């Protein structure tokens, strides 16, 4: 079965980001296809590479990044939500005249159409939020 997963909260503040990650792992383990994971609202904050690995806890941003690499996942950050909150890739940062970017490997920034298209293409759309 083909899934699009929507993640609407950032890492740590709400368990939603954890639940989404665990769901995606379990779906992959069962042989399902994750067509796309779309990060919206504060969910865009899952895609930063500037977080610091804690001594005794998970680093969610890195776990998403590693999972994307391992399974060739399409992790899409909404550009409108990202601009409000300060999540940038190198191209967008350059276009906006910013002096740095903070996206982690495995994520890409794109438009809301990617969410709709994902839901059209997929058998199921699952929303994780607050």
């Amino acid at each position: 079965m083909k899934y699009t997963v929507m993640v609407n909260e950032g890492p740590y503040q709400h368990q939603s980001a954890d639940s989404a990650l665990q769901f995606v792992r379990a779906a992959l383990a069962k042989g399902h296809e994750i067509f796309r994971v779309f990060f919206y609202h504060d969910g865009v904050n899952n895609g930063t590479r500037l977080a610091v690995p804690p001594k005794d806890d998970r680093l969610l941003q890195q776990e998403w990044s590693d999972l994307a690499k391992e399974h060739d996942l399409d992790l899409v950050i909404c550009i409108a939500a990202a601009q409000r909150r300060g999540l940038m890739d190198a191209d967008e940062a350059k276009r906006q005249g910013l002096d740095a970017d903070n996206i982690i490997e495995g994520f890409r920034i794109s438009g809301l159409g990617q969410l709709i298209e994902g839901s059209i293409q997929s058998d199921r759309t699952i929303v994780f939020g607050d």
Partner: protein
Amino acid sequence: MAMLHIVNKSPFERNAFKSCLDHAVAGDSILMIEDAAVGAVDGTVFADDLKAAMTDKSVYVLGGDLAARGMSEDRMIDGIKVVDYAGFVDLTADNDKTQSWV
């Protein structure tokens, strides 16, 4: 065309769980995850609402979320089924669609 309702809010803190019960139709399934897991416990001020819904709907709880909050499975309302993340995935596949009551 059965639906899986996913609830992640405590029934004591927010109206989302109650609203879910008010909008699920016969034959639907309800899965409690995250803070909603505490709604599975019997003897609470919410238990009767959930039991009423169970007359024509199936109710599940994510075991890991129940355990994290210190609630053992033997305290649950009779008839609630415990699933893990793999079971969560199965529920989304077995139902035609899902709605999250965030």
